[in-house]
């Protein structure tokens, strides 16, 4: 389990001094049907992009707050990573994209009957967004609308 003390000095200083957004009134959505009947979508901040889609822009001040929708039929190993952070080892995701977007695993859970279905589209964000205001105001409502349009019951975040 990674602790702040395990990070390189520059990242340790950042993590210790950054003004993290705090969720004051924590929402608790209740499952409306058994998990085995639920449609599940992934929301990943690994910066993964499908072939032909526009890469995330590492040069956006405060972090690129755009998002991509990745179809459930994509070959995950064809996704390219555009995460700008040097705070973590990228080699795991490079070898196995399921570490950033576990789409193959989700399909296996569907076949096993553990979840009802895999959503047709999954959300990809670039992590390391140090100025999240625009993400919260502009991007998240659009993501929510897309997930609602796809009848998603559960959004599973994969933070990278």
């Amino acid at each position, binding site marked *: *389990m*990674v602790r702040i003390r395990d990070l390189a000095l520059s990242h340790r200083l950042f993590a210790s001094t950054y003004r993290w957004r*705090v969720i*004051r009134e924590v*929402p608790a959505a209740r499952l409306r049907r058994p998990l085995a009947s639920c449609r599940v979508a992934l929301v990943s901040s690994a910066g993964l992009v499908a072939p032909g889609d526009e890469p995330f822009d590492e040069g956006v001040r405060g972090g690129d707050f755009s998002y991509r929708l990745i179809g459930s039929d994509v070959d995950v190993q064809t996704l390219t990573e555009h995460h700008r952070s040097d705070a973590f080892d990228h080699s795991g995701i490079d070898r196995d994209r399921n570490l950033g977007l576990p789409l193959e695993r989700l399909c296996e*859970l569907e076949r096993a009957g553990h979840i009802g279905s895999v959503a047709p589209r999954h959300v990809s964000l670039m992590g390391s967004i140090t100025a999240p205001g625009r993400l919260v105001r502009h991007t998240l409502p659009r993501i929510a609308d897309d997930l609602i349009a796809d009848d998603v019951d559960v959004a599973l975040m994969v933070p*990278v």
Partner: protein
Amino acid sequence: MPEITRRIRPPRALAVPYPLGFPLGRPGDPDGQLAVLRAALALLERMDVPVLEEIAEP
């Protein structure tokens, strides 16, 4: 990282015993990755939010 997660207070979070960049565990280890996903999805039953559970390495 648990210290940061406790500050932010997401409703349901799973702390994993892997380095940064390896949120689902080892590359090429479907069983290990599935165990992480099952543990995360199991948190949906918890209504005593915010919840931060830790799982051990299988």
